[in-house]
């Protein structure tokens, strides 16, 4: 079976702080992998580095269907089939969802008539029709933003999806719906890495493998039993079993939003 995403010895630092510490990961086509890990362990950083966000010092390698990712720009990676559903989708005022998807499908070589039909049909299914004419993610609730991300994925049909907490902020019914959609997209042409904090979503989409990320490394991989262990004993149970040091008490974790502020350069 060919490998959708392969990551080897990936280390990442940002402003001098090391976040990923030699990470290895393989997601074959046709499989859905879940990834769980404490806040600040580096899950979103992994997604951003794979997507191509700037500002990171990166060493190691990553391949998308065999192509070296790190030699490509953000948009080139996307055109090869990589798509990230963001944990915090960016609001882009003035750019309408529909217009944006027409551009993105055009960029992917989809015929405009087909794109229109596809957008309409998928919007119907995701109950997104009212959002098509609105600005991207602008003034959407947390849950609506996540729905919009999965909707875009269904329209754009990636070959490797990085789903960063698509279940956070969703109501109970929406979690089930989104999970079932992901499960339905399962295909031999698609690899999925699904980051989550909750085993609830795993009731509706059964991952082929679960990875546990602690402190910038994947410390364990396995089947459904890992989720059960976490559910009952938390990350300390995993640390105990693997002989890893306990989490430091109440270390303040900073979110990327703490670092990226608008910096006007007027003089």
């Amino acid at each position: 079976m060919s490998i959708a995403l392969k990551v080897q010895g990936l280390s990442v630092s940002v402003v001098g702080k090391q976040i990923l510490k030699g990470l290895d990961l393989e997601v074959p086509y046709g499989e859905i992998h879940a990834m769980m890990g404490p806040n600040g362990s580096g899950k979103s950083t992994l997604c951003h580095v794979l997507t191509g966000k700037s500002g990171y010092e990166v060493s190691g390698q990553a391949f998308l269907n065999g192509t070296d990712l790190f030699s490509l720009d953000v948009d080139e990676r996307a055109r090869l089939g990589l798509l990230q559903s963001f944990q915090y989708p960016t609001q882009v005022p003035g750019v309408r969802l529909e217009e944006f998807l027409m551009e993105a499908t055009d960029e992917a070589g989809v015929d405009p008539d087909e794109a229109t039909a596809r957008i309409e049909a998928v919007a119907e299914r995701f109950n997104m029709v009212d959002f098509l004419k609105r600005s991207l993610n602008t003034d959407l609730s947390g849950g609506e933003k996540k729905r919009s991300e999965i909707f875009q994925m269904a329209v754009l049909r990636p070959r490797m999806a990085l789903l960063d907490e698509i279940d956070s902020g969703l109501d109970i019914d929406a979690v089930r719906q989104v999970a079932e959609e992901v499960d339905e997209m399962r295909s031999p042409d698609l690899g999925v890495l699904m980051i989550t904090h909750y085993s609830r979503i795993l009731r509706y989409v059964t991952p082929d493998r679960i990875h546990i990320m602690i402190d910038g490394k994947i410390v364990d991989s396995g089947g459904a039993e890992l989720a059960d262990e976490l559910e009952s004993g938390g990350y300390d149970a995993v640390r105990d079993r693997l002989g890893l040091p306990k989490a430091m008490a109440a270390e303040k974790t900073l979110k990327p939003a703490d670092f990226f502020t608008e910096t006007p350069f007027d003089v």
Partner: protein
Amino acid sequence: MKAAYEVFEALSEPTGVEEDWRYVEFSTPFSGLKPVSTPGNPLDSGPFLAALGTNSGHVRIIDGLVIEAESSEASVSRLSSLPDPPTSDRPIPVDHNKLTAAHAAFSNDGVLIDVPPNSVMSSPLVIEVQGVTPDSATFPHVIVRVGENAEALVLVVYRSAEGERLLMVPEIDLRVGDGARLRYLTVQGVDHAATLVVHQRVTLGRDATSRVGEVGLGAKLGRLDLRVDLVGDGSSSEVVGLYFGEGDQTLDYRIVIDHHGKSTSSDVFLKGAVEDDAQSVFTGLLRIERDAQKTSTFETNRNLVLSENAKAHSVPNLEILCDDVVCGHASSVGPLEEDHLYYLQSRGLNKSRAGRLLIRGFFQEVIDRLPIEGLEGPVSEEIFSRFVSAQEEGRVA
């Protein structure tokens, strides 16, 4: 006007040191310019008017002189033909600066537009203001009086002869009567060699409303000195504008919104972009007078700086003499936002394409709010094509 001439002589040209001329170089000295007594050949109406469709009247002021003035829905008179033109009670002080003094001293024509009380204009009254004679200084004057409870639509299009150095200093006096509504849009498309300094006042009666729009595209120096006085209780004002500077243009907006009446409301919303060596200036003062209880006012100015040498200055200000008010301002200056570009690129759009989508999106918000409909297409095309050619020629980052 002898007195005005003396004021003009006594004042010096702005040097950029004066508070309300900061950042700006006023580089068309009067000494090289001459007045005009016979208007030159009018230019065509340009791409914007072609898109408009019907109008309810047409005024053409060429080199400060009126060559056409008719309307089926308002009474329009040439100021030079009125025995007693209402310019003596102008709301703009003669000594506001050397240019207002020059206007008072040298303006020799213009129009007075009276919109009858309770009437509703069916389509915009179009005023074309053009400067065509090389090395001229001209002073068009426009007064619009909107009668009680009437509704008026006015579109002003500024143009000037290609490549000609000239100075235009129009004075625009908009008086909106009790319960009346004015929608007024300017498309400023003078040639990049011309200097245009507009002094514009809006005076609002009780429960009167004005929506004033500005599309700033042209001029070497294009300046709008706009003051809105919300005199009547319950009056409201909206000022919406966009500008896009390229080459070595300076687009300069000095706005004062002064709230005098009780329960008035106002909103200023301007967005602009600058590329190449262009610069823009926005200063916006929201002033709330002592007795203006229950005022609500807001101003927003957002600027995109698209090239390394381009500059945008944004200075919002509040002056509040009354405490029962709601007010605020928002202002920003910067390049296209990295995280917007990242998001669009992460879905497969290349950087140029993402930039174009963001430029369209940035201005769409303003275009949707322009007070006169019908010009959205050509306005967004003009802005878009400026950006695209800059992209193609590598002039934007």
